[in-house]
């Protein structure tokens, strides 16, 4: 893998940049692979990377029906944090955050992690008690978090409307200082490049159309590029999980919904933290290029539409302006949507499925981006070893058989 570094940048620049190599190969699919991963988003690519790097399984293909990273990984609002409540959740999300902290070095690709802090506003005593509980629970799980008062909040976010005349006066905020944002495409590209260099074949524009089975095992995958044989199959297709599961003959406790996001025209840097508001249902941060990125709760009806509706935009923007009156002057530039796979307890589904050699990674709902490294590591383990990684024990599909849910509804809060 050609090294990325300042030295190399200068050297290549002197050579007029003709020496850069492809970030990933564009191979012709082989007739079969040891492991096939369906889904070329962040989770699928991370899975391929870990299969090759940690488990030495390199005869791997990632099948992506569009362009890699083109699903939710390329559409999210780039937030990373690990302030989930349960120890099992904290273990997974914080594992991912710690990977992101060293990702640029490990993947040799700058993912532009900006740990500018992730903040949830507190409006009343009940929310203060919930926030206090979260801080205490995080501490017990070995994750940091704190509550800041109004004075500190005003210092960190000067444009926030904290006056008593705001419709919902603010009392303070919960903050995880290690939380922040990442350039989302860079995560997909970083994992893709690393995986490809380790021998993984990334096949884009390759749609999975069905499975060939022998007994309760998948032995071939029908694709738009023909049939591909496989020993073991992993699926990481987020909002399309039910579609693939249906091909394999089972159902999931998943419903697919539009999650909308929007961005303003770039303005000077004025917002240095990620701010999320339970009162308005909105979260906002500012990219390095100056755009305000905003999002809200998901659309409640089932949808694979991946497009926005004005009523959601209107509600979100109205809330943003109520929270930051001066943003009335900024302009909405673009809005779009992804498809999120929502499960009843807002916790992921990882590991075995009713099909013997098919393993799943889905159910992250509105919060999958922050977990990509962990999701990949955990699915890779299941594919390589044939059973659940200890960190994923509580997140199996079988938890729904026994109503043993891991209810992170409160932590996942507003979609992000």
């Amino acid at each position, binding site marked *: 893998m050609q090294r*990325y570094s*300042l030295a190399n*940048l200068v050297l290549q620049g002197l050579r007029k*940049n003709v020496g850069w190599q*492809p*970030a990933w190969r564009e191979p012709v699919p082989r007739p079969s692979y040891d492991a096939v991963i369906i889904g070329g988003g962040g989770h699928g690519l991370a899975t391929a990377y870990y299969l090759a790097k940690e488990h030495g399984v390199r005869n791997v293909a990632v099948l992506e029906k569009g*362009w890699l990273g*083109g699903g939710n990984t390329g559409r999210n609002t780039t937030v990373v944090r690990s302030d989930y409540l349960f*120890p099992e959740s904290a273990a997974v999300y914080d594992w991912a955050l710690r990977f992101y902290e060293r990702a640029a*070095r490990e993947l040799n*690709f*700058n993912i*532009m*992690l*900006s*740990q500018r802090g992730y903040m949830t506003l507190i409006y009343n*005593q*009940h929310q203060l008690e919930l926030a*206090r*509980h*979260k*801080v*205490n629970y995080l*501490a*017990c799980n*070995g994750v940091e978090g704190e509550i800041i008062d109004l004075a500190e909040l005003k210092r960190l976010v000067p444009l926030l409307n904290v006056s008593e005349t705001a419709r*919902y006066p603010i009392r303070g905020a919960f903050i995880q200082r290690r939380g922040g944002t990442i350039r989302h*495409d860079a995560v997909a*590209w970083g994992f893709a490049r690393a995986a490809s260099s380790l021998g993984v074949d990334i096949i884009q524009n390759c749609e999975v159309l069905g499975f060939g089975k022998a007994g309760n095992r998948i032995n071939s995958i029908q694709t738009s590029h023909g049939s591909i044989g496989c020993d073991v199959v992993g699926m990481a297709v987020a909002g399309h999980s039910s579609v693939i599961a249906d091909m394999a003959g089972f159902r999931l406790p998943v419903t697919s919904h539009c999650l909308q996001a929007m961005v303003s*025209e*770039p*303005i*000077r*840097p*004025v917002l240095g933290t990620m701010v999320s508001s339970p009162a308005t249902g909105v979260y906002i941060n500012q990219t*390095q*290029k*100056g755009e305000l990125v905003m999002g809200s709760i998901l659309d409640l009806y089932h949808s694979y*539409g991946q*497009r926005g*509706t*004005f009523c959601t935009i209107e509600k979100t*923007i*109205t809330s943003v*302006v*109520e929270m930051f*009156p*001066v*943003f*009335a*002057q900024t*302009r*909405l*530039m*673009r*809005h779009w949507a992804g498809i999120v796979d929502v499960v009843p*307890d807002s916790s992921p589904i990882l590991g075995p499925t009713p099909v013997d050699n098919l393993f799943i990674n889905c159910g992250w709902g509105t919060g999958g981006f922050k977990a990509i490294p962990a999701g990949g590591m955990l699915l890779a383990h299941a594919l390589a070893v044939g059973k659940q990684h200890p960190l994923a024990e509580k997140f199996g599909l079988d938890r729904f058989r*026994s*109503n043993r849910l891991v*209810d992170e509804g409160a932590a996942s809060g507003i979609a992000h």
Partner: protein
Amino acid sequence: MSHGYRLPVGGRIDRTRTISFTFNGSVLKGHPGDTLASALIANGVNIIGRSFKYHRPRGFYGAGVEDPNSMLAVRDRYAYEPALRAGQVHLCEGLEARSVTGWPTSGFDLAAGLQLFSGILGAGFYYKTFKWPNWALFEPLIERSTGFGRPRDTVETRVAHHRHVNCDVFIVGGGPAGLATARALIGSGLKVILADDQPQVGGSLLWEQTGIGSRAGDEWARVVAVEIAADTNMTVLNSTIVTAAYEGNHFTLLQSVRDPFGVRAEYIWKVHARQVVLATGMIDRPMVFAGNDRPGIMLSSSVRRLIREFAVAPASTLAIYTNNDSGYLTALAAQQAGINVVAVVDTREETAAVHRVAARGAGIECLFEAQITATSGYRRLTSISVCGTEGARRRIPCSSLAVSGGFTPLIHLASHRGTKPVYDSRLSAFLPGKLPADWSAVGGVAGTADLATTLADGARAARVLGNTVGISIGLPPDESVEGLSCGTVVPLWRPDHGSSAEMWVDFQNDVKVSDVEIAARENYVSVEHLKRYTTLGMGTDQGRTSNVNGLAIMAGSRGVAPEAMGTTTFRPPYVAVRMGTIANRRRGDLYKPRRLLPAHSVHEEHSAVFEDFGWERPDWYRRNGESREAAVAAEMSAVRDHVGVFDSSSLGKIEVTGPDAAEFLSRFYVSNMSTLKAGVIRYSVMAKEDGVIFDDGVVARLSEYVYLASPTSGNAESVAAWFERWRQTEWPSMRVAVSPVTSHWASIAIAGPKARALLAHLDPDFDISNAAFPHMRIREGVIAGVEARVARVSFTGELQYEISVPARYGASLMRALLLHGEIKPRPVGLEAWLRLRLEKGYLHLGSDTNGRTTPLDVGMGDLVAKRIDDFIGKRSLALSFARSDEREQLVGLLALEGALDAGARILAPGQTRPPCRTDGYVTSACFSPSVGAWIGLALIERGFARHGEVVLAYSGGSAIACRVTNPAFYDSGNARLHA
């Protein structure tokens, strides 16, 4: 002159009046009819900003919305805009404009030194470096150099409105295509709306030299506008941009309402149309060549528009670079305006250029099969270098250059709807493709560059849509049409000469052909990867002038045709919309309505401090300037020792009536409500199908067929909806009706040893003695002369009555109770009320229950076991996990030392401080005056079996010891309840 200037005659400006405005502090002059762009050019302003990455000087590239360069901060009388395209701003008196890029000024920008490093600053360079030691160190530097203006905290008087309208036909665009369609619909009876982004309709007819029938094109447009205005079924929305197309033929529009001092108001129109005609036209596509980004280089059609609409010349010398016939239109227009047209450089063969005779006749030199190989002039174009087929190079001095590389139809709205654009090789452009249902496309957007065809197509489109709804539309009589056509386009995506590191594709984000080549080399070859890796088309112009060139160049690098690349998805809105306009006036109290209790004014009279709990409710009452803690303590002791008055009107009230009401309710609650007798009240919880507690509250049976359910305040609506849903969808044959009456009744609770005495003073017409009216009973009758329902039920642990009267009497009742001279009850707020119930160990939904808590977890195991018949959630409670060791069970906690926090974690046995395993958490806590210690409720694993155990409650760095107890801290024998 090497810069722009005002032409002595012509244009649609009003030369009789002058407008003063400022730019970067200097006072300049313009005329009504100018845009900020045309006025600045007329004043000779050259550099108005800098590009993002390399901080290269940027001048005006286009006259309108298609310009990627002229983002300026603008203030008019009504509002401040951190960044707006100069071509979109109409000149008004007192306008202030400023550059927002470039430091210290856009004229002299120190950061331009970055260009020296352009070799290493190619596409994606930041992914390859800045990793060590930490991206965070470099971030602030990058941020400082990006972004346009900064929002300003300033008083704004611009008004926003939203308007909704349905119509039969929605015509997008008031140029020749839209006008021809509209004209044919006059008198059809169809409700038609036509939206056009300019103050007057006409589109390109306002600045192209055309004739329709006996009239000049602009005069024809004016006459048609008058005819349309006379039809009362037709509406023309001027200065209105259609910003988005949504499914179901819903559209959003942005209308600017202007007066001489600026944009006084912005309206967002939400239009729902049965049929749609897309007539948005097309814009020029730039040519890509080395040195193509210098100030002085402009889109060809923009130059024509400047000359004809605004009477502004870009400079006194002009060259044209074109691969199609439209460049000649610019040459001729310029020459007529007295500009020295030094050459037309046409990349095509001579025979393809249909206007060459006219051009030569006007004395303009035409060069064929020629390409520009380089340009000169860092701050302003000074010359172009041209190369012919023989390889001979020639330098032609000029200070402006009009380029036309073909056309880009403005297909964005169709793309919003998901239609895949289709490449048309005749026009070398992407056309809309298969349009959504009930849409048609006419004119430039459909690829028609010819005026006569456009007019005919418009009329035909009108006829077709008339047929669809059974209305016959006649075609207009043929008219002669004059106007020079735009002819064929021979694409030249990437020139044969020049360094790709000097060829610009995206002027705002500084993306060059060499960057596209880097992307190709590194395999970011799909059109979306190209865009995201190079940032091509991600600026505020959303790639209007860069997308197609970029993807075609990438196609060339890959050896495929442009159509194989496809385009990126266009996302709404078409132009950026001010967020304040979208938010409308929904700020502060208009953001979400405040719900006031019937007795709100009385609470105010008693100095209540309100909190928004869904309703505005008194949290405590600030009497005599005391602190909150002192007040809450006084309110609690008033209830324990005397009597307190609490407004419980927000609690849900649902009447469930009918012969099957008893059976109906029994299917929801854990307790069997069908055995409830008339006049009796029972407390219970209800669960959802997964067994998790949904709500708690009391149910009262008023009579044989009438029950009154009392969900919590927060669930008043959702429980009613839940009842109704099950009734309609699962048990439609049950004879029961569900009537939510929460806001019909005001409910005031009086609690304390003196409560009966206080109730007596209201003169109830029924016996309220303890024997006649025991605990957990309800009575209907008259109190204080009004109909009332009085329930004897207690949240506080004291003798308590909840008095419900019709809501219009709520304030009177509250006042009557509080003003009682003898007894002097104290008003009690929610904080004290909740602490009183905590002393009794009653659960508070949402605090003491979470998303997993079941009736078994709160101690209702016996009740559940007793129920033989089904209730919602019962089956889930039979799953083994419902009884597992891991379940958190509700217990009481008595602190043995220190203060107990709600939210403290209970450390697992043997643990003393985090990080460590935990067993649960403290759900409610307060200091209890009655107990004399801090108490709380907690959900702890296996809690029921651990009464008496001492545990550690950790919060905020310290852990205190607590004893696990039965939650009943106060009056566990319930003597006070039955007093």
